[in-house]
């Protein structure tokens, strides 16, 4: 069961000469990639190489110090809300409220993403089923284990359809069966024309995925970036 994609024709998501500065340090610079519908990109690199920062830049939480992102050739900065509507971001935290039940947590995020309440209601049930959470749907968030919280957060991806999934170490705290379920969900998402960009240290089966080694993008700096860096250092 692939969630219905609103946009079936091929899309593309690309970055040109992207740079990111954190705490006065260049995390990466001169980074390029391009992704088509159905594509997947795996971010690799040691701790601190900027995988999370890149995903936050791609989601729109961080502004790139240099470079640009484009969707179908149009710059993202022009319409951040349209980008938010086609993107699911999954970060380090699971965003589960301890006093709300699993279904309530999920329904809130689904409705917020897709205000057509009835459609979202059905999708929530299907998403819970998919990640083996159906029997937990009326359990409050505080009773969940770390793996169950992560699965609830992953179910958010299916509860409201989105074309671009940005996953920051999605396999953390997951057991083997759940990783298999996640791999199946990712494969279906890509078969339906979706895109996946994820960072991981675990082995995850993504057939035909491109790889991006982030430790290769530390140098060289583009002209002008040095000035930005000085400004940032002075402000800090």
């Amino acid at each position: 069961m692939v969630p219905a994609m609103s946009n079936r024709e091929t899309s593309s998501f690309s970055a040109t000469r992207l740079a990111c500065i954190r705490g006065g340090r260049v995390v990466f610079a001169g980074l390029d990639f391009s992704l088509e519908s159905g594509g997947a990109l795996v971010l690799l690199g040691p701790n601190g190489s900027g995988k999370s920062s890149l995903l936050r830049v791609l989601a729109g939480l961080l502004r790139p110090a240099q470079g640009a992102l484009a969707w179908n050739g149009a710059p993202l900065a022009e319409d951040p809300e349209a980008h938010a509507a086609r993107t699911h971001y999954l970060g380090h935290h699971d965003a589960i409220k301890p006093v709300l039940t699993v279904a309530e947590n999920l329904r809130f995020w689904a409705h917020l993403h897709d205000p057509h309440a009835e459609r979202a209601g059905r999708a929530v049930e299907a998403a819970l089923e998919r990640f083996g959470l159906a029997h937990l749907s009326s359990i409050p968030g505080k009773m969940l284990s770390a793996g169950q919280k992560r699965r609830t957060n992953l179910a958010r991806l299916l509860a409201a359809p989105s074309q671009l999934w940005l996953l920051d170490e999605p396999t953390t705290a997951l057991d083997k069966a759940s990783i298999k379920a996640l791999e199946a969900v990712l494969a279906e998402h890509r078969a339906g024309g979706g895109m996946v960009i994820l960072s991981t240290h675990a082995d995850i089966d993504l057939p035909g995925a491109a790889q991006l080694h982030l430790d290769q993008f530390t140098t060289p700096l583009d002209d002008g970036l040095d000035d930005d860096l000085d400004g940032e250092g002075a402000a800090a």
Partner: protein
Amino acid sequence: MNRFLEVVRRDLRLALRQGSDSVMVVTFFVLTVVLFPFGIGPEVNVLERVSAGVLMVTALLASMLSLDRLFQTDYEDGSLELLVLTPAPLSVVVAAKMLAHWLTTGLPLMVAAPVLAVLLHMQADGFTTLLAAMALGTPTLSLIGGIGAALVLGARRGGVLLSLLILPLYVPVLIFGVGAIDAAVQGMSARPHLLILAGILAAALALAPWTSAAALRQALE
């Protein structure tokens, strides 16, 4: 608009299940006001003279008590990142959270205020004006307070910093709130004071969600 109501509903549900915040705010309000007759003596004319000031100052402090939690829990559990990435303007989401904050703190304060006014021997002429001043003043407190809560997000000892930032901005609400009640008690028109309070509220409504949204984006960078 759907998303706005969705956020309000969720925050109200969270407040209802956790319960502590509203109860804490109203309890603080009641206990502090009840202490004043003990502190300054039971003379009717003295209490009557200070009643408007005591009620407004205490309501203002009580409303500030719960402010640091407005965005803090969402910030800590990652919900704030997802709220920022909602396909709606962030200021709409922020306005929804501020409305929920007012419904869970400002509104209970408004309900408790007339009862405490009786305790402080406020003249009956002042009651409707007290309610009107609270109705116009407490939403302003939630709105302006939201800016402060967003600015101190992620800072250590944010609570102290929050008071320093926000209390000076609360002063106009205090002055015109007390001014309105005093005017009504002395048989003058409270209208000009209330109109200024309404003006402050209108300005806060227009500026606060937008400013807080910018501060929240900064906090998440």
